[in-house]
């Protein structure tokens, strides 16, 4: 099977209104190169789904964009500002604009869930306690956590609840840009569908931009405007899910045409079965 990489897959025209622009990114650990000249754009207000095999560098790409992992070469812009600018004021301004959900949740283990959600509010705003509590309750309800979860410590939560609490913290400031690393992994299908609905509501009403790493094919179909496929250190293909599905690459074909991929693409037949 011919492997032809789409020329400059993942990029948008230079004058497009982009939230994130990555150019020529090179990252690695020791001798291992993870990304080799990766280009990717995320348009303002879109939901970009990032897929790729395990270990293809999805999490590392997210960590590099948000400045947790050094880039060896390349250029990253977020809302037109240089994200690799190390000055504290530039970093703080950037951090105010984004929310991040890590693959493992990364909740602060010494704080309750409600306190975790309040951390960004305390750090960036001076809100009265009752307003913060009400906003925390709003978030808890939005992400579908049970009523008693706010007072619990992370060690007392299940894996899926940690994910949802992490999402609630990421949403705390209604960031313009949200990075989510496998948000629905570990959620039951009902909660995953509720997550899709929540993201769609936030996107429609707040114009949120989303950088979403996911393997949930239902989520890809339900909320992603574009899908980017990561492999071989760069973006192999990028476009609407139907465009990407046509792309002639063994991994992409297997991913979308396997039994799970077909079931997600034709939910009606899936239901009849």
């Amino acid at each position, binding site marked *: 099977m011919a492997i032809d990489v789409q020329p400059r897959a993942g990029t948008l025209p230079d004058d497009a209104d982009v939230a994130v622009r990555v150019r020529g990114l090179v990252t690695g650990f020791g001798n291992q190169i993870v990304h080799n000249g990766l280009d990717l754009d995320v348009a303002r207000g879109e939901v970009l789904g990032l897929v790729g095999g395990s270990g293809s560098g999805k999490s590392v790409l997210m960590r590099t964009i948000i400045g947790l992992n050094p880039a060896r070469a390349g250029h990253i812009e977020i809302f037109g500002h240089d994200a690799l600018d190390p000055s504290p004021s530039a970093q703080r301004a950037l951090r105010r604009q984004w929310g991040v959900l890590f693959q493992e949740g990364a909740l602060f283990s010494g704080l309750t869930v409600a306190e975790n959600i309040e951390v960004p509010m305390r750090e960036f*705003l001076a809100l009265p306690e009752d307003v913060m509590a009400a*906003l925390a309750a*709003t978030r808890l309800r939005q992400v579908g956590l049970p*009523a008693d979860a706010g007072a619990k410590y992370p060690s007392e939560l299940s894996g899926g609840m940690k994910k949802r609490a992490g999402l609630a913290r990421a949403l705390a400031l209604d960031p313009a840009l949200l990075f989510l690393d496998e948000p629905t992994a570990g959620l039951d299908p009902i909660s995953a569908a509720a997550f899709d609905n929540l993201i769609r509501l936030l996107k429609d009403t707040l114009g949120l931009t989303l950088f979403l790493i996911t393997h949930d094919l239902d989520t890809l179909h339900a909320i992603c405007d574009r899908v980017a496929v990561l492999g071989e250190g760069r973006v192999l293909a990028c476009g609407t899910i139907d465009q990407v599905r046509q792309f002639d690459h063994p991994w992409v074909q297997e991913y979308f045409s396997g039994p799970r991929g077909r079931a997600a693409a034709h939910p009606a037949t899936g239901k009849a079965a």
Partner: protein
Amino acid sequence: MGTGIIWDAPAGGEARVALTGRWTISEVTDLADALAREAPRAPGLAIDLAGVEGLDTAGAWAINRAIQRWEQAGFGARLDGASPDIARLIAAVDGTPGAIKLRPDMGNPVVARVERIGKALVLQGRNITNFLGFLGHVLIVLGGTLIGRRRLRWHAVVHQAEAIGVNALGIIGLLLFLVGLVIAQQGAVQLRQFGAEVFTVNLIGRATTRELGILLTAIMVAGRSGSAFAAQIGSMKLNQEIDALRTIGLDPIEVLVIPRVIASSLMLLGLAFYGGLCALVAGGFYVWSELAMPPDSYITRLQEVILMSDFVIGMVKAPVFGFIIAIMGCFHGFQVTGNAESVGTRTTQAVVEAIFVVIVFDAFFAFFFSLLGYN
């Protein structure tokens, strides 16, 4: 158009409030306050959102709260000029705490205080029983290992020995060298008053081989390695690595504790010998340079003053101290639960209790051996 609120509340007529500009989380307090200005009354409230340029979840929450306040008072409240999306957002954010629980129950402060004291006591008691259980378990596994019924993990022992012993050579050598110098110098100053400077050698020889060399080495190892054991095992516990070991069928005591206990006992023996030697060398330098006693006569004098029993007593104590340090570090590591803070408190406890118990045992040994006639 700036961010603003215009109330139009004619007496008897419908109250209207028009919002303009951006209403986001930074302005949410102002918005909530301004919306609360008018008390709910007949016939109702209309909120005009036509001038709103930006609204986030926090803004929507404030508006939702105003609507609920009016509706709960029995009057109508409606949105004007809101796009369907915005109306959907406002309807979706329900911030009333209601059944949502945000804080752990505190209860009555007096009762809570008494409860805390009681809990601390019970925990302390449980700590002791847990410790005895842990000690028993370790001794059984250790016995099994010594008679060959259990596998001894040589790899782990060697690895730990390097971390506890070899890597500590520099710092312990320097520490004991300096202590040796100080003892020699202070001793010489005091003994000079009696014209007995030459007995400085007795002081150095006996103090370091039997007591100080061992004790200081043990304190250093407790700080370096006892803390490391507690933190390593504690984070493994948080990460469920201990559970993983158990489910694979490995005994965490055998895999984690026994190698540390053995390595720590053996290494403390070596380190104590080495540390004592460093102190003696330092004393030798001092008497050579200050009292003009050449090294060969220093060594001859040492041979006369250091009793073999002193040396043996020191070498008996060292592995016991090493055992105490390792067992304390590992025990507190296994007691970690829940969060990162617990790793911190347990690490502190491991070091403090290890040093305390080492000193208690040292006093016990001193008493015991002088009863046996070894003064």
